[in-house]
């Protein structure tokens, strides 16, 4: 696939503080999650992509153009910064319209696009209220509206779901998926891992200013063979199931979590999942549920971060 954003050994310093430290990654088409803890360098990368900062070293391109500068290709990029600060004295509609005017749209076109974007983020009713009275969630929505209103190819969303209520999260996530389906490319950052996990499998993980992993989340998880996978099993006969599983050499440990639940650690989850049905049938056991306890972003991130310390 074509790389929408390409970073090669990008370094950005704030005085003695390293914002990015030789960051290298490729962001493919569709939705890519940029995941990392606070201070990892996510916002620095976004500001570099938005042309707000200049990299000290390395090469950073988006849509085939150098990221630094304010060229005409900025029409093709939408940026939703992490900071909740907006032009508080304006109404939501005015804010989006003004920024569309700065984007280069005529007055009429800007007004139409602004109304459309405000509807898409669910702010139609509040568009004529001043931004200063908006809740945190509404501010996030208006930031997203200004970011998508000019119909950009690449949409950069820095922590877009911060402060948004659960219903709002669901609708904004749906909007992001809808934008992706329409062919827009989205880079979405978050430190709340399950949010990204629900949006996409395609991730770039960042820690201490470096990309520590990138690609399909589940493949990344598979690559981490230094740590066994954790699988939770619900059964009415934990002792019988534990005895049977104990005979498998790839099972590292078995833990009795509570009366009806076992936690098994295995070095070979594929073998485990393939052999479990046969075991259940031959041994006459009952297994009510099987759940991978750590095949999620949080666990992957934790493992990778630990590995780098």
């Amino acid at each position, binding site marked *: 696939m074509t790389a929408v954003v390409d970073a090669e050994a990008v370094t950005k310093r704030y005085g003695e503080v390293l914002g990015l430290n030789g960051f290298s990654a490729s962001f493919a088409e569709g939705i890519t999650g940029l995941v990392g803890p606070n*201070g990892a360098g996510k916002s620095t990368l976004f500001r570099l992509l938005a042309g707000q900062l200049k990299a000290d070293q390395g090469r950073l391109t988006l849509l085939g153009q150098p990221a630094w500068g304010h060229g005409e290709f900025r029409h093709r990029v939408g940026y939703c910064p992490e900071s909740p600060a907006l*032009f508080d004295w*304006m109404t939501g509609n005015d804010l989006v319209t*003004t920024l569309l005017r700065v*984007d*280069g749209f005529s007055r009429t076109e800007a007004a139409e696009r602004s109304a459309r974007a405000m509807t898409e983020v669910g702010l139609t009713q509040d568009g004529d209220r001043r931004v200063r009275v908006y809740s945190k969630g509404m501010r996030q929505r208006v930031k997203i509206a200004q970011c998508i209103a000019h*119909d950009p190819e690449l949409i950069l969303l820095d922590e877009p779901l911060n402060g948004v209520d659960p219903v709002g999260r669901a609708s904004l996530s749906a909007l992001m998926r809808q934008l992706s389906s329409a*062919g827009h490319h989205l880079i979405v950052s978050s430190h709340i891992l399950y949010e990204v996990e629900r949006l996409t499998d395609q991730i770039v993980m960042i820690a201490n200013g470096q990309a520590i992993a990138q690609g399909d989340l589940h493949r990344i998880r598979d690559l981490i063979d230094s740590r066994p996978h954790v699988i939770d099993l619900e059964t009415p006969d934990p002792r019988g199931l534990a005895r049977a599983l104990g005979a498998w050499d790839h099972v590292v440990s078995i833990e009795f979590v509570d009366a009806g639940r076992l936690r098994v650690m295995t070095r070979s989850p594929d073998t485990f999942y393939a052999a479990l049905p046969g075991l259940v049938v031959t041994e006459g056991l009952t297994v009510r549920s099987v759940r991978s306890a750590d095949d999620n972003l949080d666990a992957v991130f934790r493992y990778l971060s630990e590995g780098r310390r």
Partner: protein
Amino acid sequence: MSISAPRYVSGPVVHVGRTTRALAIFRRELLRRATWGPLLAVALTWLVVVAAATFSVAFSSLTGFSAMSGFESPYESVAWILLILIVAATVGAGSLADDIGSRAITLYLSRPINLSDYLVAKAGATGTWLLIAAVGPGCVAVALTTALGYVSASTALAAVGAYFAVGIVTAVFFTGVTLVFSSVTRRSLYAGVATFGAVLSIGVSASVVSGITGNTQILYANPVTLTQTMAEAAFGVSSSSPLNPTTCAVVMVLVGVVLATLAWWRLARIEVVGE
């Protein structure tokens, strides 16, 4: 058959030019400053200047003095420069500081405009407010005195020209001063106080040092003397100032432009660690 990921391309849109885009920022900034503080400062300036100029011209016509000296009279008092300073501080102090402090500046600068466009738009808005305060009341006074029959049309035109000349130079100077202070802080209050304090303290210091040393060239550092010298020359009033009026105008414009460039330089280096 092959399946490939969709690639989005924006539809055909005609974008207006950079000047129009910058004008959008200019308009917003102009409206944004229409709050009680700046409006009161401008209203006070208008009141003082219109009253002073009109009465002076009326008095001149009765006593046989030149009407131009009447029009020039507001500049003879330090009050004029203080009022313009208040307008500059209330209008221009937050111009950049508010956007930097809130980090909302990124919303503008992630658009296809550059820092110069942004700064010119901001400077334009501050300058327009200053022009309204510095030129507007003079023109009203001219219209009033002409309507009352105190001055001829040619004198009125000459006075309007002089008000514009002094007003434009003053606006450039104070726009530069407020921009540079607004670019070095995130709080408009600090920028306002710094603008006010710096202009007054430099002016007073220059006068004191010049008085002590007898070196009149030091007065080129005093904005009050510079404005008064310029105004006297523009209105054709005999001057006791030891300074050259053209040099005064050049110094004020130059300082304004250099300070605005410094503000640009400062903005270009602002990096916010916000994680």
